């Protein structure tokens, strides 16, 4: 593999062994075990890259079959196997190596100055248990979702199909670079790569105006975050003189030094640059992971095909921000304010988007707001210095949220794009929808945090640790949010999947020939999902249940303990909940909140009968008890339905002023800047015109000018030297 910047290799390679040579990565590292990892780990990023290239070939050769999908599934499955072997080797029985770097090729290597200043960013991969944890679910879910998409996207076979899987593969490659990169520049490449793929896939239906607008919104919102990230990367380089993890995390003069200072409470000795880095990185993380105030792009991103929503906008890409914070936890720990900021934003976002989700009718959007909300949990988790809780929640959430999205996708696929929960009911009792409905139920139970599900355990880790580490307010906010989450989750389940059977087709309905729209609606039959969708949902159903068993094994704790985020948590257990040990009491408290939420949902939206334990009474799809409740709550419900008017607020306070400024700038640009540029363009020409007569083509004139020139230059130099 080679890249455009590969040619910079010799600048590095051929550097002599003298004083100039930079110390090899990791040589100075102390304390951590630096192991070896085979070159095969490169299969994880490069198999998807190969896949995307093959998809391009498929497009060129106008493949009309499902070939691109099978290429993708095969490549990603290979990547998953490699990720699993990587996980086995990193956390093997012999303790494994704590970290290792596998180098693919030299990428960027600028050197200058006499003191060996260098900007080195190899195309290398940093492997530790945090990397493994992320890559396991990224590659695993990507494989399953690609299989799902092979059926879901089948009506687009041809160029669109190739385009979809091209971007899909490219996404996994970028995500692998982001997570596995051994330096911040490769992380940045991956970061921008996933952003690009997200843009491409949100705008997949590029003829649909709303999809294009959503793609642009996502892209622009992410630019704001990316500005923060890039500034953070630059500041890291300016301050530490390197971007490589091997040095940043393991050189005792770098992160470990500041972490030690922070743990000793000596914050005064930490320079402001180091304190600023985590805040800048956090801005980047908030953009990518859709946190307040940059979250508004994620719900709109649901314009993309559902597999994309499941993979990119629920399970993997949006957790990149959490990864960034978890990876750079040592430097975050050096700034209490940065951690506080992350906790504040995380908890607030969790609550805000949960309230919005309660009043939405589009089930995919509900899941999108739910994702935003759950990401808030994860941020709080890592920022209360419980990275294992945060990471475990990322892991479990990836499974059950992907399940939920894929179920919504199956419904959307089967009911001609119908997503309104008022127009669907009793899907479970329709023929062929059992697996979808069961998977949905398992996903909902996880999301609602019903006891003994994976979601319950991982959420409790975060909740308990926020009380333990003295962030009780955040803990209570998240507890309340857990209750709201349980409500809106089961609102969807009770409305759509159980109860009286009712289905109206959505707007993707195309009447057959000689059939009016009304007739088409009347004759509409949902088409049940095929084998691929059912198989994937079945696997995810089982997977979502099994993930819970990792909790009693303390898997996430072990994974985090051996990574760069290990050993950072505060040692003192001072916090309590209601005067008791948070870890124990949280099992009960959060269970109560979760079950209460479900019961309220059952009362307000549940159908008659066993499903809602007899407390529900909904007898038709359109209405429920909740409708009667809405006027009583007053404007709050209305505002929540309008998403607290955040979009309108942004429009009024940011977009409009910007537009005005843009008009003013445009005028100024034409008058001033263009004038200036033209002046600068004109100056060289003027200079050229001035000296042009010297080129008169006459031999003797040239000779005189040459001799004169020699004289003038010599005189000039003599003058310069003497002065």
């Amino acid at each position, binding site marked *: 593999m080679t890249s455009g910047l590969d*040619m910079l290799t010799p600048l590095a390679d051929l550097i002599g062994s003298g*004083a100039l040579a930079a110390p090899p990565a990791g040589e100075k590292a102390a304390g951590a075990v630096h192991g070896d990892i085979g070159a095969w780990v490169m299969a994880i990023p490069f198999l998807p890259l190969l896949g995307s290239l093959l998809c391009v070939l498929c497009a060129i050769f106008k493949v009309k079959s499902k070939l691109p999908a099978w290429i993708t599934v095969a490549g990603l499955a290979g990547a998953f196997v490699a990720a699993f072997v990587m996980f086995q080797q990193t956390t093997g029985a012999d303790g494994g190596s704590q970290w290792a770097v596998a180098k693919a090729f030299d990428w960027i290597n600028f050197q200058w100055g006499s003191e060996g200043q260098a900007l080195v960013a190899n195309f290398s991969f940093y492997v530790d248990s945090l990397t493994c944890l992320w890559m396991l679910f990224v590659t695993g879910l990507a494989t399953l979702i690609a299989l799902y998409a092979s059926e879901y996207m089948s009506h687009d076979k041809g160029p669109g199909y190739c385009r979809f899987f091209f971007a899909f593969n490219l996404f996994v490659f970028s995500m692998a670079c982001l997570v596995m990169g051994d330096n911040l520049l490769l992380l940045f490449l991956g970061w921008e790569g996933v952003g690009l793929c997200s843009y491409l896939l949100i705008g997949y239906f590029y003829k649909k105006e709303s999809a294009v607008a959503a793609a642009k919104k996502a892209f622009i919102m992410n630019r704001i975050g990316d500005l923060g990230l890039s500034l953070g990367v630059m500041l890291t380089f300016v301050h530490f003189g390197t971007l490589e993890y091997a040095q940043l995390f393991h050189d005792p003069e770098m992160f470990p030094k500041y972490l030690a200072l922070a743990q000793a409470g000596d914050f005064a000795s930490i320079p402001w640059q180091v304190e600023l880095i985590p805040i800048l990185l956090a801005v980047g993380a908030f953009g990518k992971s859709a946190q307040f105030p940059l979250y508004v792009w994620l719900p709109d991103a649901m314009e993309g095909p559902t597999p994309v929503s499941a993979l990119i906008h629920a399970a993997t890409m949006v957790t990149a921000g959490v990864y960034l914070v978890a990876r750079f936890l040592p430097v975050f720990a050096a700034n209490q304010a940065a951690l506080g900021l992350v906790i504040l934003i995380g908890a607030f976002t969790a609550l805000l988007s949960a309230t919005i989700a309660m009043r939405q009718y589009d089930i995919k959007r509900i899941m999108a707001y739910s994702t935003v909300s759950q990401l808030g949990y994860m941020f709080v988790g890592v920022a209360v210095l419980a990275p294992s809780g945060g990471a475990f929640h990322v892991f479990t959430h990836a499974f059950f949220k992907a399940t939920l999205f894929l179920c919504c996708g199956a419904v959307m696929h089967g009911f001609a794009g119908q997503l309104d929960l008022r127009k669907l009911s009793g899907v479970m009792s329709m023929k062929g929808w059992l697996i979808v409905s069961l998977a949905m139920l398992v996903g909902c139970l996880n999301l609602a945090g019903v006891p003994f599900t994976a979601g319950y355990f991982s959420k409790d880790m975060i909740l308990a640790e926020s009380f333990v580490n003295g962030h009780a307010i955040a803990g209570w906010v998240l507890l309340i949010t857990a209750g709201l989450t349980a409500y809106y989750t089961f609102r969807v389940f009770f409305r759509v999947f159980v109860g009286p059977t009712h289905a109206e087709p959505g707007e993707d309905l195309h009447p057959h020939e000689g059939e009016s729209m009304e007739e088409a609606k009347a004759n509409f039959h949902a088409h049940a999902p095929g084998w691929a969708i059912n198989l994937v949902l079945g696997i995810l159903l089982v997977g979502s249940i099994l993930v819970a068993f990792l909790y009693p094994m303390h898997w996430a704790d072990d994974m985090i303990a051996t990574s760069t985020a290990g050993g950072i948590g505060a040692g003192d257990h001072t916090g309590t909940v209601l005067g008791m040990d948070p870890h124990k009491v949280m099992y009960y408290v959060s269970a109560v909140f979760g079950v209460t939420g479900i019961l309220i949902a059952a009362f307000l939206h549940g159908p008659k009968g066993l499903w809602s334990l007899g407390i529900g009474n909904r007898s038709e799809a359109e209405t429920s008890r909740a409708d009667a409740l809405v006027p009583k709550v007053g404007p709050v419900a209305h505002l929540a339905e309008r998403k607290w008017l955040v979009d309108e607020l942004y429009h009024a306070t940011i977009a409009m002023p910007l537009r005005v400024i843009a008009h003013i700038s445009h005028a100024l640009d034409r008058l001033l800047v263009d004038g200036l540029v033209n002046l600068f363009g004109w100056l060289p020409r003027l200079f050229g015109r001035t000296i042009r007569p010297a*080129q008169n083509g006459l031999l003797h004139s040239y000779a005189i000018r040459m001799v004169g020139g020699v004289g003038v230059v010599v005189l000039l130099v003599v003058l310069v030297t003497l002065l």
Partner: protein
Amino acid sequence: MEAKLASLYPEITLFITTCAVMVLGLSPQAALRRLCPGLAIMGLVFAGVLALTTTPGAETPLPMLPMYAKTLVAGVGVLLALLLAGSADRVYEAMIDRGAKFDALRSNTGEFWSFFLFSMTGLMLCAGADDLIWLFLALELVSLPTYVMVAVSTGRNRSKEAAVKYFFLGALGAAVFLYGFVLIYGAAGSTDLATIATVFAQQQAEGGLGPIAIGGIMLSLLGLCFKIAAVPMHFYTPDVYQGASAPVAAMLAFVPKTAGFIAILLILACVRWPDGALPEPIHALVWVLAVLTMTVGNVLALLQRSAKRLLAYSSIAHSGYMLVGVLAGPGLAQAAGADASIATSGFAAVLFYLFVYGISTVGAFAVLACLERTSPDGEPEEADDLDDLRGLWKTHPSMAAVMALSAFGLLGLPPLLGFVGKLPLFTSAISAEEIPLVIILGLNSAIAAFYYLRLVALTLLENPEKLPTRPELKMAPMSGRRTAALLSATGVIVFAFIGGPQIAGFAERGATYIPKRVHTGEAAAPVDTPADAEPVAVRDE
């Protein structure tokens, strides 16, 4: 003596080929005459292979330079030979094809090819020079044949005018640097470069170079400015390039320039670089030359309507860029005894850039050589006006692509070869802490972008103009020109990724700089220091 002879195998090979070509070109059989280019290319390839295997002479401060430079010369020489193939005697050969009798006195083929090879031999000798007289003779051997080649390159008077200008001004330039060489001899008491380096090192340790030495170096550099087409000796460049046919112009853009830069490096390597910079007056001179050259070249290129003149000014500007690398010098690290690194060694950057520039500029000239129209006097007229290139993409897509790639390459657009070559010029100058110069270099690259991008826009984006006064352009029948164009365009892309780094590494080795040590104390031991010995830390501080 034997070692010296062994280092001359490439030149000897070329010389033998030259003799063979000279005879072959006079052959009455057209088929035999047509073998000339092939034979020349074979000779160059052999010479290149031999150059790779020659052992370096360890005496001069730049012991590895001959190996790199000769190989480079052979490589680009093959490209030039392809481009030149079929140029000489084109009208006359056509007459013979139509039945005219061959007249050895009228035929130029043999001379043309032997002059080409003489020039290349001179260039190689230049790289291997270890003596001022040798260097002077080699430089003249490079240039003298080119005067004739310009004159016979087309049948027009324009070419003869160009040749006359070139010859007289060339003589003037040669006089200037010869005067400089004489002064250097006067200051050092020897014409041997290694001895000069030792004497200069001693003088610098004892309080600096004397005015005669400084004056000699300054005049040498100013005279060599003619060879590299730098201000104030640049006036001839556009006129000569325009008067010559495009293939010969391509040769002029590469061969004398390379000779000039090699000579400049050889002379400046004789001076010790205390703290990584030249002695003040010479430093000031090179600084001024670099700034003037790139600025004058670029601003005048902006105004051109003729593609050849534009490329001529671009060639002037590129000399300015490379002078920045010259000023950056061997780098502090090398002066302290470490190996050359292209990131910090300006010498390595210049050597590598010569390759990059050679490939790109030959491509641009090759496009002009490939496109021609018949003119009333029967002699084909090459494309020259920028309007000829307008909308080339619609009529000759491959040539348009080559032109665009060459322009991008000359502009230094990433990720093409031009960028790979230009970057070390920047980094080495930054390492040498020539920040103002780097800024000027950047600004000049921006100015240059204007006319290079115009070249690209003209060829790729615009529509061809059909004028009744201007017959349509056709592809020249010589396949060599097309091959050269396509090869250089391929090189601009491919070498950026594959092979380029290795060539840069080769340039690094070529730039290995072993400064002469100053021997303190009375015992004036002969200068005989092994390359791997610890540097003597004596400085005039």
